[in-house]
């Protein structure tokens, strides 16, 4: 009596045509699978056509390469099922392609983290003024403050800018003005625009403090930091945030803060060189930073939660801490050589009076 081997397994086939369940008996051989339906159908499939899918409460799903919607559910995880290649497994070629792309992406990301800031510095001079100027206008407009138009004050400021002119001249035409707002601050916008806030002039103990801040802002212009920021915002940040989502955004922010602090340190160093060349004393700038720090500390002393916040944000600030900057400047004082006042008393008085008249910001 001829003996046939007993069916090694049972399962259910979904043929991908309808949702009807076809209970089947499975016979497994070295290179094929025989599927016998209870309705008398019989099909032999090469085992190279089969892929192992997910294991769920119903059993292990087996897929077919040639019929994407076909499914076989095997309740018991027989060894022949476990031996099948996984359905998601990539061909060797696809694996190599994925590996190459991933390696390239990781390399690009690593290069961007390590050298991104330097690359932006190299690319910054390539931003045409046609692009930079309208962006700078928008930056100045966003200050939402009118420009101070005192003619004598503006002339005095222009003389100070001229005194702080580097040997080779400016990399682009500079337009420094005062905006009528009480905050103690100064901003360099793309297109060579420098806006000094009235509050800074009001709070300054003398013209040398203003000269120090102006030298700092002029270094931003010389190092093309505004153009770098434009490239960063419109190039790098948008791509990273769009494709990297929230976590990509956090990584981008960390890079932005790091590069911003570096730019401020470079601008401080540049300011010292500029002041020395112009024979202006740097110490008042240090005094200015000291005073800012004392005011911050006075505010913090009133409020313990603020102290905690300050400690936490010292890692995330866009500028280095004021005392760190003051210390760097003070170190330069012994090398200052002979110095003269940054402005004549008449010019200083004119600059302090510059906001008697104001008008909407207009470039000169």
């Amino acid at each position: 009596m001829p003996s046939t081997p007993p069916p090694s397994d049972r399962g259910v086939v979904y043929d991908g045509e309808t949702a009807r369940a076809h209970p089947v008996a499975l016979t497994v051989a070295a290179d094929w699978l025989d599927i016998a339906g209870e309705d008398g159908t019989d099909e032999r499939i090469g085992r190279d056509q089969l892929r192992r899918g997910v294991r769920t409460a119903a059993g292990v799903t087996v897929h077919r390469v040639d019929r994407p919607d076909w499914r076989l559910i095997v309740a018991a995880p027989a060894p022949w099922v476990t031996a099948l290649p996984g359905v998601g497994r990539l061909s060797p070629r696809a694996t190599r392609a994925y590996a190459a792309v991933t390696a390239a992406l990781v390399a690009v990301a690593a290069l961007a983290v390590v050298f991104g800031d330097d690359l932006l510095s190299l690319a910054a001079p390539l931003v045409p003024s046609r692009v930079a100027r309208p962006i700078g206008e928008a930056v100045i407009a966003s200050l939402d403050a009118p420009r101070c138009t005192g003619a004598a004050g503006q002339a005095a400021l222009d003389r100070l800018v001229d005194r702080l002119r580097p040997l080779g001249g400016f990399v682009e035409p500079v337009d420094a003005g005062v905006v009528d707002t009480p905050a103690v601050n100064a901003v360099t916008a793309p297109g060579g625009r420098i806006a000094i806030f009235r509050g800074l002039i009001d709070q300054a103990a003398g013209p040398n403090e203003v000269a120090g801040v102006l030298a700092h802002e002029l270094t931003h212009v010389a190092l093309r930091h505004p153009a770098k920021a434009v490239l960063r915002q419109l190039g790098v940040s948008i791509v990273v945030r769009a494709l990297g989502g929230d976590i990509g955004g956090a990584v981008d922010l960390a890079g932005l803060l790091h590069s911003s602090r570096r730019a401020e340190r470079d601008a401080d160093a540049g300011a010292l060189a500029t002041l020395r060349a112009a024979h202006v004393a740097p110490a008042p700038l240090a005094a200015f930073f000291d005073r800012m720090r004392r005011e911050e500390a006075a505010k913090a002393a009133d409020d313990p939660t603020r102290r905690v916040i300050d400690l936490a944000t010292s890692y995330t600030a866009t500028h280095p801490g004021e005392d760190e900057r003051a210390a760097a400047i003070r170190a330069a004082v012994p090398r200052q050589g002979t110095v003269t006042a940054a402005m004549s008393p008449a010019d200083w008085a004119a600059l302090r009076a510059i906001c008697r008249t104001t008008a909407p910001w207009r470039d000169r």
Partner: protein
Amino acid sequence: MPGGSVMIDDDTGQRLAFTGRWPAFLGMVVVNVLLTVVTLGIYRFWAKTRVRRYLWENTLVGGEPLEYFGRGIEKLKGAFLVFLMLVLPLIVVTGVAAWLKTQGMIAAALLVYVGLYVLLLYLFGVGSYRSQRYMLSRTAWRGIRAGMTTGGWGYGVRFLKLALFHFITFGFGAPFVATKLWNARMNDAVFGTAAVTADANWRAVYGRFLFAWFGAIVVYIVAIGAVFASFGSQLAAFAPGAPPPADPRAMIGIVLRLYLVFFVAGLAIAVLMLRYYAALIAELFGATRVGGLGFIFTARAGQFLAFMLGNLAIIAFTLGLGVLMMPYRVWSFYLRHLQTTGSLDTAALGQTRLRGPSQGDGLVDAFDAAAF
């Protein structure tokens, strides 16, 4: 299972069940976060795909699991397309608007901004439709795929109109808007050859909606009244410039009692709102059919409240890390309270001819609006 024609209406087994286990899910999402960080965020597409696959595969319909076969690369492609075709042009347009403003052309700039806002609202509608389209096209049960019949551009127009209606009725059209949008999205869906239909009716929930809003106002007034009636005289101590209290500990007692009143009032308002919300969800599911299969959603306001307080507690006690568990919590909550009625003739249920989109739900990723 004699023969092939099995209806999934045998009442012996659970028709809908969720077999997921939270430690397994947690392990997966923690690995997802780590991989997302080291890839500067790019892995998030694969992370989301893994979450969906876990939830789908642990969802049993008539004893058999759903299947999710979307792939991370499809989502990356979708996000890349949206970046090229939407994000970049938007940046140019906002730049133009900012420039117009500096040139004094305020009206023109305003027009650009309004146009942009309307366009984004339209695209948000299209995106939510296309997200559903992508997910359904990657969903199968017993080898039969689901899908959506259109690309969603027409749905975007309807979404825009209903958003306008919502706006001009000061939000009092919300139940109308919610039911109409659900119906529109469901009536375009198919599961194999079975049509998905929905005829949710806003009138069924409008009473609760009004009761919730006016009830909330009443609770608010009662709470304010209770505060003034019970310790109105002591409230002077909170006025600006009031002298410092003689006994700070008494002040703490007053503050705690104030918090208690507002906590009870807040809870009452939450229950009122959740009563409406639970009724709305029950109406949406109850009015939806897949072929001959209907649904019953059973969660009441109290269960929603317990669910939401549980979510808050989990997030609070894990310092926010519990957010990772929310897809699991939401999915299992809805499945626990969803039952089916009627039957689906699986022998007559054929395969759909829809092919589905080739790239993922990038538009909704751009708005970061997908729940799962």
